[in-house]
């Protein structure tokens, strides 16, 4: 094996110091708080694993976790097929393509809290376009009063905000397919569906994986949009994990349970990141062996 010069590692020392100060030390503090009951700056009691117990047995938390999982899965189930369909129907060349790309990307440029506000107004029955239209059609729609309406609105908002990301990724993936594949398909007289099933979908595997994981992680950490739109209500029907955490930590100032909960949240995200990382790496190697065969 060739000897490797490891001195370059010294060059990242400043970054390590910065990260230590901004991320590692605070994380250590969180671990520290999670085993104590901080009553006041002077008075604190070591409680061991008590907070982890109470958090793990907390039914509100389990509810929030379940809602979070359901929401993330629903987001994926709607946004991925819709994104693919959108990408397939977008024009491939010319000024139309550019125009559509810009139009599609607009919603991605809007800040989260503005998206929340837009939908808050959009869904109002008295002045909002969607709310008033639904009311005029005879639906008893109210995203502040009815849990399923609130869910529907939050989900629709996320679909509106983030499907373009999936569509843009898929669009890029589709453009990367060489023309030769389509020519071969047309020689074989393949139907549109066969082209999609046997050429486009397999070739989209890589970008789709990234889209799935990006959307999963992002929706798993969603905070601002439902907070602005529904404030977690009605009741706690749309209170997702990060909002529940904020209520605990900032609202009630229960540092101990909030710290324990943050660590559990961190572990969930860590596991997801690990799976994401390995999955993406494997997708890369699968593509390489695929190219070797083809």
């Amino acid at each position, binding site marked *: 094996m060739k000897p490797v010069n490891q001195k370059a590692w010294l060059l990242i020392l400043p970054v390590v110091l910065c990260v230590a100060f901004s991320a590692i030390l605070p994380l*250590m*503090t969180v*671990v*520290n*708080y999670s*085993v*104590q009951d*901080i009553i006041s*700056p002077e008075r*604190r009691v*070591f409680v*061991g*694993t008590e907070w*982890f*117990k109470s958090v*793990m*047995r907390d039914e509100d938390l389990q509810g929030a976790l379940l809602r979070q999982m359901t929401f993330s899965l629903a987001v994926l189930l709607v946004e991925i097929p819709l994104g693919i369909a959108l990408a397939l129907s977008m024009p491939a060349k010319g000024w139309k393509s550019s125009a559509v790309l810009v139009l599609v990307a607009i919603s991605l440029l809007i800040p989260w809290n503005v998206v929340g506000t837009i939908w808050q107004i959009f869904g109002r029955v008295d002045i909002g376009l969607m709310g008033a239209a639904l009311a005029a059609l005879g639906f008893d729609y109210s995203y502040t009063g009815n849990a399923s309406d609130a869910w529907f609105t939050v989900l629709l908002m996320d679909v509106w905000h983030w499907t373009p990301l999936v569509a843009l990724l898929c669009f890029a993936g589709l453009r990367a397919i060489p023309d030769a594949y389509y020519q071969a398909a047309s020689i074989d007289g393949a139907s549109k569906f066969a082209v999609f099933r046997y050429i486009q979908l397999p070739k989209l595997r890589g970008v789709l994986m990234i889209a799935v994981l990006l959307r999963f992680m992002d929706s798993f950490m969603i905070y601002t949009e439902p907070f602005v739109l529904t404030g977690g209500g009605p009741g706690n029907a749309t209170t997702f994990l990060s909002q529940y955490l904020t209520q605990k930590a900032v609202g009630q100032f229960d540092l101990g349970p909030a710290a324990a909960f943050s660590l*559990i949240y961190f*572990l969930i995200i*860590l*596991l997801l990141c*690990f799976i994401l990382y*390995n999955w993406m790496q*494997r997708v890369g190697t699968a593509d390489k062996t695929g190219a070797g065969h083809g």
Partner: protein
Amino acid sequence: MFEWMAWTLPVAVFFCAIVAMLVAMTVWELKSPTVLRRGFLPIATTRGDRLFIGLLAAAYVNLAFVAVSERMVGWFGLEEEPSIWLSFFASMALLALIMRKG
């Protein structure tokens, strides 16, 4: 100077253990570099990967134990909640298993 951050001894022990682990892994790596291999885990892993997976699994084992330890009293007819040390040793055994065979 550490008073205001409310540090406690168990947390200090915890982080010292992690630092010790990192140092030990570095020394081990220098003495005998790790080989990418495939065990019972679905992916090929190096020693560091297995440590990470093992620690993550250990954390989940402890959390799961804490979540159900209250109910264990009913399940097994115990007089009090089982000690967290049980899951700690179980998770360390799991870590060792993943390190060796994973």
